[in-house]
């Protein structure tokens, strides 16, 4: 178990380093997806399946779609076919695909273990997360909503200026 957790952590690290060293934004996004998936596996091995699912659904799913969408909007100049040819060379996707396969293999290997066989002390389920979020930490949820509000106002504020400048 410990070895698997360390392996996933190493994949997270490799992925993160690759994200910040890629020059093409789409390639960086591919590596970022692998990084987030590896992080989800770490969460799952630590006994927090709900956090792992959230990581996959929200970060690797929704946030990444948003990233890809923004990158496509910003690169409107060139013909699509050229762009896709350059973006999707095997050299670009082979690394992330390999690591993702590795992670998948890890998950398949751990699947037969029952929760009480593992070293994880207790499983953090959706119920636990919900109880602490809307129990003692409810004020923090409210505070986080103010954080999102100020982020929203700020981005709207700066974005609107850009439109008028043009």
């Amino acid at each position, binding site marked *: 178990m410990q070895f698997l957790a360390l392996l996933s952590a190493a994949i997270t690290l490799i992925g993160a380093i690759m994200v910040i060293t890629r020059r093409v934004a789409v390639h960086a996004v591919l590596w970022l997806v692998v990084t987030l998936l590896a992080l989800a596996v770490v969460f799952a091995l630590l006994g927090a399946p709900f956090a792992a699912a959230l990581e996959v659904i929200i970060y690797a799913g929704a946030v990444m779609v948003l990233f890809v969408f923004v990158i496509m909007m910003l690169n409107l100049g060139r013909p699509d076919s050229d762009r896709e040819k350059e973006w999707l060379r095997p050299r670009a996707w082979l690394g992330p695909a390999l690591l993702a396969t590795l992670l998948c293999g890890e998950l398949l290997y751990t699947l037969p273990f029952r929760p009480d066989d593992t070293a994880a002390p207790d499983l953090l389920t959706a119920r636990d997360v919900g109880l602490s979020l809307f129990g003692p930490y409810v004020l923090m949820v409210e505070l986080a909503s103010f954080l999102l509000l*100020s982020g929203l106002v700020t981005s709207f504020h700066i974005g609107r200026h850009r439109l008028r400048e043009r």
Partner: protein
Amino acid sequence: MIVHDLFLPSPLLALSAGTMVLLASIAWRRSAARSLSIGLITFLAALALTGRHVGSAPPGTVTLFIQDRWADYNGILIVLSSISILLMSWRDLARDPAHPADESALLLLTGTLGAVAMVFSANYIPFFLGLEILGISLLGLVASRRLRFPEGCEAAMKYLILSGLSSAILLFGAGLAYAVTGSLHFTLPVAAGSPGIQTAATIMILIGIFFKLSAVPFHLWLPDVMEGAPVPVAAFIAMVSKIAIFSSLVRFFGTGHLPFYMQSLMPAVIILTILGGNLQALQQTSFTRLLACSSIAHVGYLLIAVLSPGQLQSGVITIYLAAYTASTLGVFAIISAFGSPGHPDGTEIADWKGLFSTRPFLAVTLSLMLLSLAGIPPGIGFFAKFGIIATGVERQHDLLLAVLVTGSIIGLYYYLNIIRVMTGAATPLMVPPRTRQPELTVLVTVLTIIVIIGGLFPARLLRPLLPAPAMTPPYQDVMKASRSG
């Protein structure tokens, strides 16, 4: 339901309620004057509710927020600074249609909310959330000028990247601290065993805090960001965010003796901060950049008092914060009063030439504020600096005291240089037209009175307000308590 177990200081409640009222008002109809009025009323309500709280903590658990005299004092300072900053920006926002008023008022409110949340936090989670609310609100405020949008955007970009980096380091440190102690209590991580991780956690949290506090060698962003920001926002960066992060620093370390490795680390940072800030200020031709460098130096002076536990420490930190706040706010208010649309806005030192003959009121008050910052009587800054030296003498920090004296002498040069520029002959072209701005006149007058009265009768301000010395944190977290119960 657990609502009766929650504990929330009332100022936070007032600020968040005010934010929502302001949002509703903006949604109904946009009006600069009304948004600013709602902001002002909210700040006054938060001030009136200081010292009260909603709900009570169940005994035996660690709450997310703490309310003691130190938190109340810093909360008052932050809200008072925010009121002054609101008044400073009133003219630009309400009378100049080129400024987006509603967003600025809203971001000022949320920024203050974040700062107050940091001051009251006893746990890593509200501390970090407050820090981020403050940082992200500042981002919008920095880039809020339409006339100088590229400069504002550049400053905002620098702030975004460096603030993100420092937040990441701080969060890493907090994670390590949680790994060692199993508690999110906001204090020095102390646990049996694994001293290496404890040290690493403390140093990472400290680096994050120093970044935000802009202590040398993490200071490079401050002058650039303050120069690109509008004058009231520069004041917000120099006052509100620094008071909030400094109060958290004191809360984190407590007032007792620091651990051994800190005893060797802190003096190095202090020496670099005082000398770096002052030497950098010598070369500036921009007034806001100069104030940024001077605020770096003042952080260095304050850290000397943090490093010297003793009888004097608590009162001295209290009075120094008040002195720094009043004097720097005064300087920024005078810069705001000087500038007028379409004319030199007073951010260049050369603009101030001959002010003694053209606008004597501003020149005299500015001289007083600068003398107070330099630590010369009759300003309140004299007594504050005297107190800092007294704490240093009490703990016999000879080297730090020598650096402080050197720094003060360098500081004297650039503060007096501005007064020298103001006494020069005025060139008729540069005299800006007088505009009626009653709120700024009142603000400058009030701050001047505070600086003089505080300088003449400082004893009333000398109150021991610091939190009790740090003890070993209770190894019981809210999370654990709720899971078991």
